[in-house]
């Protein structure tokens, strides 16, 4: 069934293409698996009728913008818009070349959390419905109800962009976000409480299973380097072999490199096929950036990028 917001999106997208206001639309269409969507990148106005909006639009579509020429209309949630703003700040994208179709987002449902709670895989579930602060899962006509904060993506629980600021078209009024910063940082809290040696062991065990598929980097809008440092051979900053030490150095360097540009959208963690908890790094980093520089990535398109600006009042003990 097509929702009201989808109807509006489809007509907006069609109109943008028909009137030549954009050459390409980037949005979501139904995927080939249950509760799964897939990016729709199209110049065809007929394809606009395939656009969807639902609580499973996990991708941060801003990652595609830099590779598409001309004017692009993009379907974006609050966090995705912050990525777009950050790209504009970094001059990777011109504001006039992007038509932001803002989607008020009430949080994305984390299928991994639902699978764990239900003890079943996603393809064994019949339905998942969000109703305000509840999520109802149906399996073989029996319904189970969960508080939304138990099944939303960790990054969403820390969302502070329910009110979309930067947009060209807004599809709906503000959405009700179920925020729970404590829940969002539950792993960070555990890690902070660990003595350094134990924390080191934790990350060692996480990065031992990294296969260096670079999905975290590839889905990251802030990772737009034409040549990533891991591919440099002279000097080779890290080994291409997936040893845990090199895997860890790769991720830590990547995280440092996107500091001030990373919006903690959580795309890296969602993409990771071996479940490394990357949100606990990206969120912690965003917290440090906020603490040291009073800066929040992607919230002001006219602001200088964090690493391009210096103020004498800035903390000098940032390396610690």
């Amino acid at each position: 069934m097509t929702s009201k917001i989808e109807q509006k999106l489809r007509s907006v997208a069609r109109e943008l293409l028909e009137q030549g206001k954009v050459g390409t639309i980037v949005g979501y269409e139904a995927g080939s698996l249950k509760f799964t969507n897939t990016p729709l990148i199209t110049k065809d106005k007929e394809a606009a009728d395939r656009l969807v909006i639902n609580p499973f639009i996990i991708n941060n579509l801003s990652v595609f913008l830099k590779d598409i020429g001309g004017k692009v209309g993009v379907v974006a949630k609050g966090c995705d818009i912050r990525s777009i703003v950050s790209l504009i700040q970094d001059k990777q994208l011109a504001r006039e070349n992007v038509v932001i179709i803002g989607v008020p987002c009430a949080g994305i449902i984390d299928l991994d959390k639902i699978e764990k709670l239900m003890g079943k895989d996603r393809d064994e579930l019949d339905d998942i419905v969000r109703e305000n602060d509840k999520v109802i899962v149906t399996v073989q006509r029996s319904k189970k109800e969960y508080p939304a904060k138990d099944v939303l993506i960790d990054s969403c629980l820390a969302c502070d962009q329910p009110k979309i600021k930067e947009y060209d078209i807004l599809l709906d009024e503000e959405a009700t976000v179920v925020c729970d910063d404590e829940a969002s940082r539950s792993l960070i809290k555990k890690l902070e409480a660990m003595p350094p040696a134990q924390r080191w062991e934790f990350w060692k065990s996480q990065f031992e299973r990294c296969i260096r598929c670079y999905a975290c980097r590839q889905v990251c809008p802030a990772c737009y380097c034409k040549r990533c440092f891991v591919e440099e051979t002279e000097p080779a900053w890290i080994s291409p072999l997936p040893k845990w030490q090199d895997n860890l150095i790769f991720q830590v360097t990547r995280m440092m490199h996107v500091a001030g540009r990373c919006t903690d959208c959580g795309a890296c963690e969602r993409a990771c096929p071996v479940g490394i908890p990357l949100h606990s790094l990206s969120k912690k980093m965003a917290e440090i950036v906020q603490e040291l520089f009073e800066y929040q990535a992607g919230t002001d398109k006219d602001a200088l990028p964090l690493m391009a600006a210096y103020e004498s009042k800035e903390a000098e003990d940032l390396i610690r």
Partner: protein
Amino acid sequence: MKKIKKQDIAKLLSQWQKDFTVFVPSKESGTAEMAVWDGKDAGFLDWYRNTVVPPKANFLQNMEKLFGFRKEGGSFKLETPPPETRKQLIFGIRPCDARAIAIIDMVFKDAYEDKYYLSRRQNSLLIGMGCVKPYDSCFCTSLGLGPAEAADVDIMLTDTGDEYLIEEITAKGKELLAKTSGAETASQTDENKAVAVKQAAYNKVTRKIDTKQIKQRLPDAFENKEFWEGVSAKCVSCGICTFLCPTCYCFDINDEMLKGDGARYRNWDSCSFPVYTKMPAENPREEKWKRVRQKVNHKYDFYPRLFNVIACTGCGRCIRQCPVNWDITQTLSGLPAGAPVTEKK
């Protein structure tokens, strides 16, 4: 044929553990993969459908040392490791993954015999387990096998409810079973039950592709830039689909040396990465659509031409694990019909 109660699987594994390093499906590391059995129980039977990391990793490791070297005077002294003699038993391998290993065997024992891979193969036993709950992403039945295919394992188990029916497939499997205690003789009723389970599983695989049509259309579409650009637009060029593919066998070679001591390693590589084909003068697959085309063609055209078999077993990992739900079955089904497209100069 024999059978064993599910609760007795651990007893079976304990016996085998004496002669083999026993690998079982495990989530202990944080992701589902074949890992050394902890000797405790067979709790994995409760959740196991398939692993995220395919069992090809037990043969083509994601990183392995080929040999060491040491600088001595003006030359290097090589230190070749002794041949792999550890015997491994992989318990619960799915038919698609067992077939995949049989498929990549062809590469590793072709004109060049890869002793690292082959010694592991020779020292391994595969205990297959038929699927009763295929994923919605599975499409094995379109590729000449099915969720109960036993041709590529030494022993095959079929889940009949409270028990497993045990079929000895190879001489190696027969030998192992002969010295294993705890299995009872299966009755005709048990065998009939297994037949029904296999048929039911087969019917549960609903995702289909038409390999005949693909064979016809794929070569004709090779120069169809528009088609490949279209299907590749949403690909993010990560290595998930290739690394986790049970038939992708590409590897890179890297030397590491510190103070005159070094080693040569090989590690998984992926044609999805632009650097995969980067050479000093040019990169023939700099553009994404060419890399996606390569991946699909390698599996469905080039490999069949070389070895007469499609290098895909329909395990569905590339669909399940893809961060953007790029679905190879959709690409293959969408191949344009009609005359070959020639490249415009």
